[in-house]
């Protein structure tokens, strides 16, 4: 997958960091200091369908052209997470107990076209 740069319009991963101190949660979340709430955005034109991330090789580019010219069924292709990992949290609950848990699939590491 690729990370979104300034003007990229194709499917990519947009990084977004939520600093718990900035949102006033630093007293109830002991660790970590923030949450990488990355998300997927960008276009998935037909000939990109099914390719994780953006085509990088010549062979793939040719394959894309064949697909684009021959494709008959107009189907949607969406830019979605292709790799995710858990968010580990150490936090206070409402009874001031300290809880540690790993929330699965909370951090997006890569995006691609369905």
């Amino acid at each position, binding site marked *: 997958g690729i990370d979104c740069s300034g003007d990229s319009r194709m499917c990519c991963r947009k990084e977004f960091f939520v600093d718990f101190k900035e949102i006033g949660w630093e007293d109830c979340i002991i660790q970590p200091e923030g949450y990488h*709430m990355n998300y997927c955005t960008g276009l998935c034109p037909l000939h990109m369908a099914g390719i994780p991330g953006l085509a990088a090789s010549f062979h793939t580019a040719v394959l894309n052209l064949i697909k684009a010219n021959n494709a008959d069924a107009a189907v949607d292709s969406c830019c979605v997470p292709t790799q995710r990992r858990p968010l580990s949290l150490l936090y206070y609950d409402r009874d001031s107990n300290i809880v*540690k848990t790993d929330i699965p699939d909370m951090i997006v590491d890569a995006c691609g076209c369905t």
Partner: protein
Amino acid sequence: TPKGVWCPACGLAALAPTVQRDVLITMAKQSILSKLHLPDRPNITQPTSRGALLNALHRMRAQRMDMAVSPGMPLDGSILHLRPGMGVQEYEILSFAKSGSSTSRTVRLHFHFTRELARSTEILQATLYLFWAVPGPGTHPVTMRLLHPDPMGLNMTMASETQLEVQRAGWATLDVGRAVQSLFGQGSQRLTVELEVAEDWGSPLLAGHSDSHWPFVAARARARTTHRVQRR
């Protein structure tokens, strides 16, 4: 998203950067709170001191090392080996004691667990850590009772009573897994530990409640999975 339903990320690009940021932060808060089964951001009234937290984590690690080393540990329900569940969310919970009523011969400690946790998880293991302060040499008998309020919260139900022989000052660990499981099973959220000693002992715990010797319960829990039935 299904056709025609607004896709959160689609509309985002059209918003002004500051508005985008606010929308994303709101989504991040909602996402974390819902995954932690918290209705809203917890309001922390009694943060634990760093000393007590570090000491508790140190005790738990020492206990795990002992368990890992000790041959033939009991395989009954009290010491469950946690296989990392396939994608099932697991929790480790540290609950520090709140002082309850006490007399010349009894001390009561309360441990609270949130309703959300009691509803959404199943307890796999729970250990009570106590630091004994003994008055002198010899063996000192202690009766430990585990109580929890009945669902109406009017009376106390005794889950178990154990006779202990305390010979020296220091940390002791006691398995309270079944008591916490039955607590959660009855929809209750408070475990009360009552310690009864002989008349001349005074308090069996370290007087003055020094932070790093304060009693706590360390529990391991797993998210309740919806019951799946497979037919062949």
